[in-house]
């Protein structure tokens, strides 16, 4: 009854490849500084907007709003800087790993997450590049499985070449070709 090339040897758990010992690759060096710049810029923009609103002579603002505006601006500035600092630290610890049969993405400062995506379960791939990413030559790799949109596997901040190589690797992978 057995198929000719069937074999099913016992596999000791210790010998399985473990996600504990992943060969982690860091994202592009530009990625974290770029994000920091964007966040800082956005914070600055919000503060500037508040300031122009405060100092402009054209519209009469309600008294209450005028009095509390400086407080809001300060709050936005402090929160913005805090967020920028935190997300910079978070961006630095993001990494990915490629094994022969699966992809892994590690992220999180306080809440560490390792997402593992077997290549054989990949449905399709997307390379996403916004205007800023295009400018500096970065790309985001999105990998879709049948697990649904909520569980899209994505690696941001890859150099375009790396992203394209990864995509090529996945597309030409024997598992994907078989199940395509």
């Amino acid at each position, binding site marked *: 009854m057995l198929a000719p090339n069937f074999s099913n040897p016992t596999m000791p758990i210790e010998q399985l490849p473990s*996600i504990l010992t992943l060969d982690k690759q860091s994202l592009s060096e530009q990625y974290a500084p770029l994000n920091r710049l964007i966040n800082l810029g956005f914070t600055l923009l919000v503060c500037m907007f508040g300031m122009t609103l405060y100092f402009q002579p054209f519209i009469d603002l309600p008294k209450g709003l005028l009095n509390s505006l400086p407080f809001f601006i300060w709050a936005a500035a402090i929160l913005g800087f805090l967020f920028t600092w935190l997300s910079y630290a978070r961006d630095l610890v993001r990494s990915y790993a490629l094994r022969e049969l*699966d992809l892994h993405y590690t992220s999180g400062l306080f809440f560490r997450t390792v997402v593992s995506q077997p290549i054989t379960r990949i449905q399709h791939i997307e390379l996403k590049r916004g205007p800023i990413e295009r400018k500096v030559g970065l790309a985001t790799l999105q990998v879709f*499985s049948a697990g649904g949109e909520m569980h899209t596997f994505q690696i941001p901040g890859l150099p375009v070449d790396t992203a394209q190589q990864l995509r090529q690797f996945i597309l030409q992978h024997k598992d994907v070709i078989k199940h395509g």
Partner: protein
Amino acid sequence: MDNLPSASATDSRNPQETLQTIDDWQVLSPIAILYFTASVFKHMFGNLIYLIPALAVSYKSVLEHPFIWLPSILVAFALLTLFAFVSFKVYRYRLTADNIEIRSGIFSKKYLNLPFSRVQNVKIEQPLYYRLTGHACLQLDTAGSAKNEAKLVAIKLEFAQQLKTRIQSQVQNNTIETNQENDCANGKEQPGQSADSAVTKETLLNTRKLSDLVIHGITSNRIWILLGGLAPFYDNIFDSVGEWLNSLGIDFTELFSLQTHSLLEVGLFALSLTMLVMLVLVSFSVVGAIVGFYGYTLSKLDDKYIRRSGLFTKHEVSMGLSRLQMIVQKQDWLDVLLKRINLQFEQNNSFGKNQSLSATSSKIIVPSIKPHECQALIDDAYPDNSLNTLVCNDGFEPISKRFILRNILLVLMPLWLIATSITLLNDRLMIAALVSILFVGLCGLVVLRWKRWGIARDQNFIYLRKGLIGVDYYCFPTYKLQQTQFKQNLLMKKRQLATVKFVLASGSLKVPMITEKLAYKLIDEGLYKVESCQQSWM
């Protein structure tokens, strides 16, 4: 599209040779107008829900001007009928040897071409108004989005059945071919089976009696959803009910007044009234269960499960065994008392996303069955699973007790402290005591929740137990995994704990606070299983 002759030539081995391919574009039977009207109405009433608040506010003033609303309703009605008629007129379908084409749409034209081999799921639906003429709707789901489904709106029931068997035999041939190519380590399907697939008869696995459905209606209190929806109208409802009862000569204020009646009497009145209301609500739920699941049969043809049910609209859902992603065994607290189980066979979730436990959903639900029937069904689907022994011997590994500590200390305690300090500062002793009782009760629930959590695994499956007062068991073959996630925060890292999330095509499952070692083991083994066994998840 024009390779029809060759396609039908290769089709000669097909068991359903009697079913000829139709080369020309076909028109539906005129009965479809009814369907289109009904669907337009359904669609409209679905949107009308958002208008109800506006109508409720202004309905008095609207009622005062019948010469406005009467004609407008008539015009709307006429337009809808016209719309349904034109929809029917422009609908065309064509069947070739191995695919189906549908043209439809009035303003935005839609052309759909679906190869049979891509069909995930075949559903036959027979609304009440089709039953007289023997027509039915055939719905073909693909693995893609819910929008890309094909629906043959009005075809003869026999034709629908024939078409279904043909499509499914094609799908099956396809999967067997790919499975043979894959020479999978776990390949259970023997090619020999497909040869006599046309001969095998449908075997009946389970039927539900009316009494079972009544139990299902009582235990699945879906009525609370309805109650929530009615919430804005409570005042009006109570007022009008009160008026109605007054007109019958029953006066509430007098009934419940302690001056005219003793405390016992009033208490009895209140008790019987709540009982009465509960009875009404439960009977609604029972009616809902009967409408959805009347004449329930679950049968098996080859490796396909077929569920048929419905009082007014008859639904037929079929699912190939290979499409099955996960078995869920659900028991609410009432189910635990009555020793009944709701069994669910879950498949790809991309279609029918927002249909939960209703009869129309594409997962196969077996409502309120007895434990031994449930076990028989599970063993039928996954013969080598050991869920039963695990349940009997309590073979599940519990999660860390820190789960209790975390939830009480970090979530409930702060809330309780804030609430009691505020109430105590305001000298509201009674409320503070109530809050404390609630706090203790919630802590008890957290402990119960912890007690329910459990995970187990064997060679081929991963089992999960969770619940609060009821117990739910989840069981899925490890190779069906789509993705795994390992989660750990700093506190958990210190205690060497971790949370694991399994992503399947039917949804995701999370196990919180297990030991780090077990988490790594689960993920490493899972990935190994998926990658070493080349079996497709579909």
